[in-house]
């Protein structure tokens, strides 16, 4: 699987205004939870998701809650990812990269992967059921997909050391919870297909992305985990290969592309797939399109199975040149087992010549569209205690346990804008100058020179020759 590595750094920045006084006598301590989820994929790839949650109970918010006038959405369609993205992110971790799971965050391995996604979320969370007091949560997630198959000479087996070139020796002493989860769902389905060593002390069952999953759990705070050896080096061995055909397709996925030809008009299309066998669900689609693509809103077309699909809600804010991008937000109902296509035509604007990037022929990036949906589960799930369940299932808490929340980002687009030849001004100046100079020169000559006819002084030979010709013609000689 060759995936691009789009870094979607989705930063929700709530404006923190002032700080209230402290009332509690007991000094508050920030609580930290860390976890690593390893999911072996049948292709031989391994997906590793780190989650770190720092929660502090300080009163940071002013009364009256967040002012939604200060809420901003910004997106950077593309960024070249490098270790500089990781270093400041690691600095936010209480244990830095000295202890606990963060020891595994070795930049040279993390950026040698086929997929890399890194995020920071800051949000207020309720401390109790009635939400009387609010705590602040800083959640840092990092997901990488290792291609174990090609790097391991055709073997699908992997270990922590082979992936990260480190092993775990201890939990972060500041963490109140430190877990590693390994997805072993395939074991329970049929006979044992994979073997994890050392054997897990416990397993955990949960409904993740609508499907029931089984995880082997390693508690790093439990000294028994390290009892065998000084360090924990998780290993996984495949006993028999599974057929690729049975891999899970997510219920909601999407693609986005730009079509059309020429440098004037084009079409943006987003294709939404609902693969749920029997449930329809609504999707909130958010598009921000830069102003230099002039959208024609009347061409907005949403079709499902060849029929028009009318969105139940549309919010459109037109762009202003050089100030504001287009904002298009729609709530679209996706019927069960269907493909919906959302398309809108646009015209490419001409930029001022100083507004082009240094490599204008590369094209301009258009940010991905964002899909948010409550996707119905295939199996029923019982409501879990939010504080006690693992971090990966509490990223987006949903009160209704029959569905789960998904936010998808489609791929960013690359659109070519009409690009001028940047040497053209010089060429034009040179050409017009030459033309002007030529005209001017002849004009000048015509006006300043004096013209008069000179009596031709012919030589004797010429006159002789002329007279011969004249004689032949019968004209009197000169």
């Amino acid at each position: 699987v060759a995936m691009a590595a789009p870094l979607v750094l989705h930063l929700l920045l709530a404006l923190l205004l002032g700080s209230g006084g402290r009332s509690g006598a007991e000094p508050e301590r920030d609580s930290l939870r860390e976890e690593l989820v390893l999911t072996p994929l049948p292709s031989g790839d391994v997906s590793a998701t780190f989650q770190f949650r720092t929660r502090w109970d300080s009163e940071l918010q002013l009364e009256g809650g967040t002012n939604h006038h200060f809420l901003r959405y910004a997106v950077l369609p593309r960024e070249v990812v490098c270790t500089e993205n990781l270093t400041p992110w690691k600095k936010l971790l209480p244990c830095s990269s000295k202890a606990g799971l963060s020891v595994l965050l070795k930049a040279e391995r993390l950026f040698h992967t086929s997929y890399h996604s890194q995020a920071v979320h800051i949000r207020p969370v309720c401390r109790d059921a009635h939400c009387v007091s609010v705590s602040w949560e800083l959640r840092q997630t990092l997901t990488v997909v290792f291609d174990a198959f090609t790097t391991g000479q055709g073997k699908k087996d992997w270990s922590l050391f082979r992936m990260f070139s480190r092993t775990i020796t201890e939990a972060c002493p500041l963490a109140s919870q430190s877990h590693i989860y390994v997805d072993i769902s395939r074991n329970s389905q049929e006979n044992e297909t994979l073997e994890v060593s050392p054997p897990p002390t416990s397993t955990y069952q949960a409904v993740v992305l609508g499907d029931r999953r089984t995880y082997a759990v390693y508690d790093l705070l439990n000294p028994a985990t390290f009892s065998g050896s000084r360090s924990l080096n998780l290993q996984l061995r495949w006993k028999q290969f599974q057929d690729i055909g049975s891999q899970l397709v997510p219920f909601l996925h999407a693609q986005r592309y730009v079509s059309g030809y020429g440098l004037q008009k084009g079409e943006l299309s987003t294709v939404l797939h609902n693969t749920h066998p029997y449930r329809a669900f609504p999707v909130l689609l958010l598009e921000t399109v830069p102003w230099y693509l002039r959208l024609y809103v009347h061409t907005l077309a949403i079709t499902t199975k060849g029929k028009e699909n009318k969105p139940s809600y549309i919010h459109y804010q037109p762009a202003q040149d050089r100030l504001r991008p287009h904002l298009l937000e729609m709530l679209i109902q996706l019927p069960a087992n269907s493909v919906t296509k959302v398309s809108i035509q646009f015209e490419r604007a001409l930029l001022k010549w100083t507004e082009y990037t240094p490599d204008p022929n590369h094209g301009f990036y258009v940010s991905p569209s964002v899909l948010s949906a409550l996707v119905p589960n295939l199996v029923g799930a019982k409501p879990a205690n939010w504080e006690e369940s693992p971090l990966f299932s509490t990223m987006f808490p949903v009160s209704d346990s029959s569905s789960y929340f998904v936010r998808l980002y489609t791929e960013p687009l690359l659109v070519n804008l009409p690009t001028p030849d940047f040497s053209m001004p010089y060429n034009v100046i040179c050409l017009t100058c030459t033309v002007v100079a030529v005209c001017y020169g002849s004009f000048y000559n015509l006006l300043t020179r004096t013209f008069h006819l000179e009596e031709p002084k012919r030589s004797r030979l010429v006159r002789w020759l002329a007279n011969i010709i004249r004689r032949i013609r019968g004209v009197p000689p000169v």
Partner: protein
Amino acid sequence: MRKSGLPWKPGSLQPAPRLARRKTEKIRGKHAALCFATMAVMLGLPLWWKTTETYRAALPYSQIGHLDSMLLRLRVPVSVVFIQGSLPIVDQQKLPFTVVNERDVPLKCKMKLKCRFQLAYRMAGSHEEKAFKKDTIEEAEAALPLPKEDTLGSLNIFVIPEKSSLLPKDKMSYIGPKRTAFVRGTQVRQALTVMGQRILQVAQSMSLTDEVLAAALGDRLPEDKVSLDKRRPLKSSLGYEITFSLLNPDPKSHEVHWDIEGAVENYVQPFLSLLSVVGNFSMDSQILYYAMLGVTPRFDAASSSYTLAAYSLPHVINPVEARLGSRATSLYPVINFLLYVPERAHSPLYIQDKDGARVATNAFHSPRWGGIMVYNVDPSAYNTTKYPVKVDVDMVPVMEVFLSQMRLLFGIPPPQMPENFLLGDPPREGLRSWEVDRLVWARTVENVATVVTTLTSLAELLDKIGNIVIKDNVASEVYRAVDAIQEAVVELSAGNLELAFRYSREAVTSSEKAFFDPSLLHLLYFPDDQKFAIYIPLFLPMAVPIFLSMIKIIVENQKARKDIEKVD
């Protein structure tokens, strides 16, 4: 046809009219060429000049030029009050009058600096007399009525009778925590002259000492006057960001708590509120785990403790600073205060000075950066099996160290007075009013000097490089800076320190804004060779014929003149 004799046939013309015709034709050509030349010069050149000109707004160059060699007069208004019996009767009758003492400060540059103490002598009023009936000097000071002019930079000096028991016998003067001082009087002849010297000495040590001027003017002073500490204070700025960090490199053994919020409220906030004249302060705090020092301490077997030698201290800061990470978020200079709780394997940890003796405070500071203090955990806490050990930091000694470091970093060193001076204790906030005044004096002079440098170098730069666009907003900032600096100089010589400081700050802001305006760089890279590469295709073919015909006309004219001379 031939017989009709049409004019176009040259053969039919007589030589004389043909020659005349040729001559008029030639004159017409000459006129046309001259016409072209005048058109090109009168119309073409100005048009080209006007359309390709870079926009350069007018700047007050001459005023900026004068700034460099201006006279800066610092006036200190001092009111001197004589208590009954402190002067001989003869001299008392001369009062009130005003004495002006002016002192030149030699500078390396063209600027001139003069300190002018304006001593207004008068006799004490009845309330003031009453206050001096008290027993101790502190009580007397407290009982004094509030002076009419208790503004920033002004001083009040009271002269008490020679035999007064308010001062200890061996002390000549007392300097209080406010802007007040007491000087012992005298009964000798020429008492006023003698007193004048004493009063001047007190006034000087309360306002414009050499240290203050050295801190403000730095490299403008001649070398022999510059002290070693001149690089210690922070540069004058509109605001400062203060970061308190608790470094816990060993969270497995120590669980450290510090009540930084309470400490800031109780100790730092009152201190900074006195300094609020100087700038805005913002504070934050953080706890950093696994933040190590860059140096491994040496084990000292004799005292079974670890030591950090003085020479290794410079290497301590860099690795720690990588973790601090607040510098990116602030425009203002950041001052760091670090409290380091050494890991259990390296405690107790002590800092040694150059002579190998332990530093009593176990702290050190780095000029313009901040301070670091090592906080050792009480060894008896380790007599437990339960780790991590809970450590509650005692904030009083920590804040004592941090505050004294803060004084040094802001350029308020502990005052050094002559031996026969008695120095009053500072108030609870930790700063005497006249110490703040001294800082404001220093900052004002420093601001003025900075603005002068900024403006002169900006003017020089703009003068040298003609390609730089000077937009109206840059010009208006320059004008504002020049106006503000002139106001500041006027206010300084009038003795209004607070106003002068405000103007000087305004001038700094405006001049920096003008100097760092990005629009200055817009056309900077547009070299002349490229410009002429564009112009040549137009200019060359147009200019060459004009030049040639001009030369021809001149040559012909000269020839014609010679011919005429010959004929003559």
